[in-house]
């Protein structure tokens, strides 16, 4: 049964995405409510699309409205100076040959970037094309891959796949350097089909074997990609039912022509930005997949559509994601303007299971409920507190976090405002009631008041939701 927006809004039970009308889901957001664009909606957009936002940014997004805010988020002009400085810093860090320092550098970039949407998408691609410094151990190659992901993040997917197939770090990580004509290595071919482009069930073992032959002779020499013609299998291959002397470029093009490719990418984007639900139906994803096919797999238009959609602002999305450790820490850093030691932050994120440049395996980070267990929940709370207590001085943190005019508001209003800005979903009323005495107690001391309320909120389960 298909349900309309009105029906699912009224439903008292958790709904399955199968029940949603796909056309309605990805149509521009509209609401029957009088105030359809509140702090909550603006906060939801900024929380999901970016790596964190300040109070003025939240206020501006609410005032500008959805369409203007999305235009502003995707406006990547006037960042040249920041990019130039960060690139220079990144190259110096890469020269140290300490992969963990690269993690610190990227975290710093994510914390300070004026282009948070692009940086978050780069993090998405890093998880998608997972490559670990534990195996690659070549800072320059890792740094170059990071630049590649950022450079091609918003554009067409096919050039990105072609570039990543020639990327030195990826070639080392998936053993493509051992891919000889007489003994094809199937690692890269397998992951290209399973993890990068199509997903399990959309190819055969024979496709993997044939695709691996296409990549024979792709090598790394003196730190650079090299095509070794003598080691390349130039013979005829049968791939997805077609017989030809495919080379790797033609083979990758054919892979992306498969019907499942667009759905696969759409699903990964929706899981990263919208909901942790694993079983998103093909039917629901089809409008996005269709758009990808029609627009040469361009990523930015699809992201704009997702962020502007009914589904994105529905109960299927609001509070339906657990913040990753990187999102959790960077949200706080950006929200409170915290300056903290990035090497220490790297160490804490490693404990929590998400150290950039060091994904756990070729699948990247599973995300969702995998982020939370008894140990990591405690560590996440400690990380939140440590960041706000040790970053710069606490007074600066709290005055940056919440303007004085808001911090001095009447208690009920202040609590409501903070809940809307800081949490994706409101906690139960009895929990909210516990905040009132705290707000009253520090009524004359705005900074302590905000700090105490944050301490309380940071311990709530709702705080872990993005």
């Amino acid at each position, binding site marked *: 049964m298909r349900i309309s927006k009105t029906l699912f809004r009224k439903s008292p039970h958790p709904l399955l995405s199968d029940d949603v009308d796909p056309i309605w889901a990805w149509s521009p957001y509209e609401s029957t409510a009088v105030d359809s664009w509140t702090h909550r909606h603006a906060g939801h957009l900024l929380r999901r699309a970016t790596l964190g936002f300040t109070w003025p940014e939240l206020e501006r997004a609410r005032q500008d409205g959805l369409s203007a805010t999305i235009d502003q988020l995707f406006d990547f002009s006037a960042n040249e100076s920041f990019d130039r400085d960060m690139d220079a810093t990144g190259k*110096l860090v890469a020269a140290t040959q300490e992969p963990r320092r690269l993690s610190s550098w990227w975290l710093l970039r994510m*914390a300070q970037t004026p282009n948070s949407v692009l940086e978050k998408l780069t993090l998405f691609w890093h998880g998608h094309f997972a490559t670990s410094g534990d195996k690659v151990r070549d800072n320059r190659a890792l740094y170059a891959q990071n630049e590649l992901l950022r450079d091609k993040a918003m554009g067409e997917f096919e050039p990105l796949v072609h570039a990543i197939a020639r990327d030195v770090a990826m070639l080392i990580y998936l053993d493509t350097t051992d891919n000889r004509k007489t003994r094809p290595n199937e690692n890269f071919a397998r992951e290209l089909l399973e993890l990068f482009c199509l997903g399990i069930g959309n190819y055969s073992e024979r496709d993997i074997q044939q695709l691996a032959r296409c990549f024979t002779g792709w090598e790394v020499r003196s730190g650079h990609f090299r095509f070794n013609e003598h080691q390349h299998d130039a013979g005829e291959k049968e791939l997805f039912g077609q017989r030809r002397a495919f080379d790797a470029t033609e083979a990758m093009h054919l892979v992306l022509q498969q019907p499942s490719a667009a759905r696969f990418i759409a699903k990964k984007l929706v899981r990263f930005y919208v909901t942790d639900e694993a079983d998103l139906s093909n039917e629901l994803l089809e409008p996005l997949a269709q758009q990808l096919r029609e627009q040469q797999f361009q990523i930015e238009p699809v992201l704009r559509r997702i962020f502007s959609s009914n589904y994105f602002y529905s109960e299927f999305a609001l509070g339906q994601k657990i913040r990753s450790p990187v999102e959790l820490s960077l949200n706080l850093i950006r929200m409170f303007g915290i300056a903290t*030691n990035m090497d220490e932050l790297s160490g804490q994120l490693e404990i929590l299971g998400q150290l950039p440049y060091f994904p756990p395996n070729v699948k990247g980070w599973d995300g969702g409920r995998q982020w939370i267990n008894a140990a990591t929940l405690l560590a996440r709370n400690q990380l939140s507190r440590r960041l706000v207590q040790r970053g710069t001085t606490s007074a600066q943190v709290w005055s940056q976090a919440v303007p004085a005019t808001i911090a001095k508001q009447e208690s009920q209003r202040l609590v409501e405002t903070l809940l809307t800005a800081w949490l994706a979903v409101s906690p139960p009323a009895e929990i909210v009631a516990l905040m009132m005495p705290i707000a009253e107690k520090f009524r004359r001391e705005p900074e302590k008041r905000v700090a105490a309320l944050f301490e309380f909120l940071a311990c709530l389960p709702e705080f872990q939701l993005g």
Partner: protein
Amino acid sequence: MAIAALLVDERDVGCRAVGDCQNALGLSAKGFFMLSRFLLVQRRFLWLTYLLLGLSVNSVLAQQSKPQPTEHKELFAQDGAQAFPETAWAYLEIRQPLQWIEYVLEHPLRTRLEALDQVQAYYKSSQIGPLRLVVGILESQVGMTWTDMIGVASSGGLYLAVDSKTQGFLLVSRARDGETLSKIVKAILSWVDLDAANKKQPRPYEAAEHRTHRMIQFAGGSIARVNDWFLASNHQILLTQSMDRLIDASPNCLASLPDFAKAREAHRQMAATNLESKSKTSSNTVEGSNDAWAYLNLNAVRQAKIAPQLFTGRTNNPLGELLIGGFLDSFQSATHVTAALRRHSGQNDDQLHFEINVPISETAITEKRHYFFAQQPSEKQSFIINTQPVIAHLSGLRDLGAWWHAKEDLFDEDVIAQMALADSQFSTLFASLDFGEDVLTAFEPGLQLIVAEQTYADSNPDLKLPAIAFVGRLKDPNMMKRRLRIAFQSVIGFVNIQSSMEGMPPLDLMTQNIDGIEISAADFVLDQKSPSGVVQFNLSPAIAFVDDFVIISSGKALAQDLAKSAKSQPQRLSENTNAQLSLEGPAIVRALRMNRETLIAQNMLEQGSKREVAEQTIDDLLQILDFVDRVQTQIKVDGEFIQWNFDLRWDADNAAKASPEGRLP
């Protein structure tokens, strides 16, 4: 009242300034009190409130003071050390504290530091506000600046000691005169009263008396005045006994302890000698009589089991052992250790000198530390080869072979195991030779390490490191030259194989023999495919032989320079100098400036700061380092003492650029 009783004989002088102030304002003491209470209740003009309260209390105290004649016949000591018991284990004396304070306040570096944003922010913070207020109140009450107050209160010296018997500390200072001292004490107590009143707490002290001399007892300690002497201690008995010693000029005191007296006299003679020699060699003034001097009774320290690791005779750090092991050895048998701080100042020179002296006898040196001290008269002076421009320079009299052999006695099992592993690995390079047995023992006692700036003709590493070189002398150059050269070739070959695996360019090894200098050096072969900016490009390793000298360097140019210097002008360290380390400030700053971008990146990552903030921090740091001209430390050994000294020379040119304006807030 207690304060009045304490300050009984100076009441008129003490209240003159207050009276003048009151008259000028046309207020009585009661009027002062009422006005200040009003302001306190209003919580406005806090500084004015404290000032008025201070003046009013002061006024009342002065009016209520009554003179009491002194009837005791008292001798009064003239030396601060006479106040302390023989059981004092740590002692410090500063003859002219004000000169040290003025030195800090008037130093150009202070002006530079105060201009830093962080310091300015600290000055404006709530932490410094109350201190400003208290200082302001005290200055207004006493009628002199806080520096003058310290100068007057300690013009006869400042003395501090820790007693092993009572575990208490005692501070003694001798003022210019008793009147001013009482005025200062009175002002402080007035402020204490005001602070307690403001906090609605009872007065935190009580008055007491000891042999007609009054004391003030706080919860955590006591203060007292004996004539022009001021005493403070956290231990009541220690304080009263010290008052007795001062009053009676008692001979049973620290000053009479033979060991102490001898060490103190030795220091004074050394300072006088230093003063005389400096006066002869330069136009500088040497503040020999105004230095700070400290004495530590090591027997008492041992008994109290303080810092027991100092007396174990082990460092468990091979490098640290090599540098200062012999110095620590002297601690095991010495009865005491002394330290002194003095400054040399002149028109073109501004230098701080700090030294630690430990009495030593040659028979007390343990065998395991023989590598540290020369055993033969011919070995008494180590060589030194000069080259320019140098960043750091270490030269010392060390017998590497003996040091390696003594490892079982010097280090614990973990360190010995690591050294054995290193022995095995290094021995591989020397084919049939054993690294410890054959290679290290092939060197004469004495070594030199040089860190120098280098240029980058063909390569441009992102991180620009200075070149480093080791210089030693071979006992049998004809035999060892060939073995060392082969080992060097092996290292280059190994590096080339490793570089090839990492896509790095190879090192090309060439050997030249010019004017008696044989040098083997390797350069990277760069082409268009070579990576750029890698840290390895700092290297152009070289080994050079001149006469019996061998030079192993990370940079070819440095090896060549050192080889030429070794051939033309090998020198020796000055007499009695066991080791010497020099750091050249301008060269260090130049090396850091070359790596400014790297330092900024480092700061951004460690502080999480934005680039502009990191740039400012690094530039501030470099500007501060600009003030340092040279840092030098030496270990000197003569028949009686082993001395470890440090000299810090400020850069006069940079110092002149900053004007000594302003004072501490």
